[in-house]
């Protein structure tokens, strides 16, 4: 039995036109300490997979098993790093992490231990200089760092990251990717990350899970990235293996799971729709 098991997970959302099947039969086994990326076109349901693991959504069929226990509600052992940081704007960076730490370690840590633990986690993401700043006083990258610190401070069994660097500029993103690699090396977290950035996926992951297009999206291919750690983005840029992996992901996304239909098809289709309406 593996550490985290997503088995035959399907989900349907009720809509006025009847149920909409977003995911169909998703199966994935993740080992402890593994870094897995989910990649796919937007709208393919990768966030839905993550939300099912987080417990924010309930799978209509199948489910998720973490260390032999079924997941059916959200909890801090599956901490989430949200795309838009989701820090409480009325609390400082320290207080944001404190809220999580207080909740998770209420009984197991003393006040002093909690304080040290909060500071330790903010140091991990290099935010010790801005602990008392509010979210609106720090940059987007710094906010995301605090978001990561908050998630790490929960000491989660699995760290779930929903496009954590999507809203950041390229330089900041590279910095944060390096930080995440560094932290994972140190702590050995199990991480599931959603991304739409091919380079990011190849650089960070042990395995890349490629999703087919929805509706009823499922796992298309899984690519194991066999590159040695620690990985260096500059050295890898010219690496033959790295570029092969990259090409393979690109090929999946742009040949096998082409999202944009050729223009001719669309025209044909709309013509057909019109004739349908007339009929």
């Amino acid at each position, binding site marked *: 039995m593996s550490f985290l098991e997503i088995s035959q997970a399907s989900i349907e959302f009720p809509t006025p036109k009847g149920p909409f099947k977003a995911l169909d039969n998703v199966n994935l086994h993740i080992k402890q300490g593994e870094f897995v990326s989910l990649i796919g076109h937007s709208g393919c349901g990768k966030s839905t997979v993550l939300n099912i693991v*987080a*417990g*924010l959504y309930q799978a209509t069929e199948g489910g998720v098993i973490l260390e032999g226990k079924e997941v059916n*509600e*959200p*909890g*801090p052992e*599956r*901490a*989430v790093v*949200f795309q*838009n940081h*989701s820090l*409480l*704007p*009325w609390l400082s960076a320290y207080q944001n992490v404190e*809220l*999580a730490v207080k*909740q*998770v370690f209420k009984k197991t840590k003393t006040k002093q231990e909690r304080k040290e633990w909060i500071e330790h986690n903010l140091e991990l993401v290099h935010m010790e200089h801005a602990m008392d700043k509010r979210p*609106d006083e720090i940059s987007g990258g710094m906010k995301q760092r605090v978001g990561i610190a908050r998630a790490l401070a*929960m000491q989660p069994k699995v760290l779930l990251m929903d496009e954590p660097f999507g809203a950041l500029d390229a330089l900041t993103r590279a910095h944060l990717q390096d930080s995440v690699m560094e932290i994972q090396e140190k702590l050995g977290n199990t991480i599931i990350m959603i991304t739409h950035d091919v380079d990011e996926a190849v650089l960070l992951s042990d395995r890349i899970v490629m999703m087919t297009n929805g509706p009823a999206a499922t796992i298309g291919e899984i690519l194991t990235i066999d590159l040695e750690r620690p990985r260096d983005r500059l050295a890898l840029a010219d690496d033959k293996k790295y570029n092969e992996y990259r090409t393979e992901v690109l090929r999946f996304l742009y040949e096998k799971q082409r999202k944009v239909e050729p223009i001719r098809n669309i025209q044909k289709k709309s013509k057909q729709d019109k004739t349908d309406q007339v009929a």
Partner: protein
Amino acid sequence: MLSFLQAPRQAVSSYFEGGITQGQIANLLKAIGLPVLGFLCFLLLWQFAANNIVTSLGNFPGPSEVTTQFKSLVAEHNEERANVAKKYERQKTRNEAKLAKNPDAKIKWRSYKSRATFFDQILTSLWTVLCGFVVASFIAIPLGIIIGLSSNIYSAINPIIQTLKPVSPLAWLPLVTMVVSAVYVSDNPSVSKSFLVSMITVSLCSLWPTLINTAVGVAGVSKDLVNVSQVLRLNWFTHVQKIVIPSSIPMIFTGLRLSIGIAWMVLIAAEMLAQNPGLGKFVWDEFQNGSSNSLGRIMVAILVIGFIGFLLDRVILLIQRVVSWDKSSVIR
């Protein structure tokens, strides 16, 4: 409390501290000059209109008449207080004289009440509106939070709220009066019935804006923050305290400001109709009085009512500035 004076004050201080620049003069003119100009125009128009309206009680009161009446109200107030002080003085000398004659003499200390002057009426009204408003807020905010958190409760309660919201205070008043008379029976009442009637009417009419705005604010808490709360498994109370209330503070205060405005308006009407002590009763009594001073005094009352309404709004604004976490937002 006088934060509405801040804009001119800032302009003045920068005027004195640094050298005078063209921009500063323009700012100063804008900050002080324009309101003064507006006020002068208003006084002119008022005087002009007043001269042209003749009633059975004489001319409609213009600014000068109002000033005279205001002074006479102040004088009456001082006289009344002096009278009461004199009575106490006399009682003291009388009793001391008695004691000097016979140290074991039984002496009485009476308390003298002064007749309610215009300024006493203001205080009565302020106290009543404050109590009514506080009661309304203590009902409306928690209820609004509960309604906002659950769309089911919202659907169930919303029609009732929307039906009760537009009811005029004058319609509530007879009912409230009868209910208070029936329920509040005590030989030694700690508060007067008229106070209770006014206060309850104020509460009934002023709780709706706070209730609705709180509910809307709570329902609008960002989904991301709710997700954070779920992942952290915050219990209901912590969720409300740490996430719901801080994020709906601006909406709650919008409601409170609307509510205090309504509360003040309702109070004057209630006092007038139910003959409960306060500014409303003062206006009504002067109207019934029908002397040549009456219209001027009513006009004084109207201006005071307006000014107090303005101050009440500013006080809530000031509290919002202190309470709100978002100091950068422009609150006006």
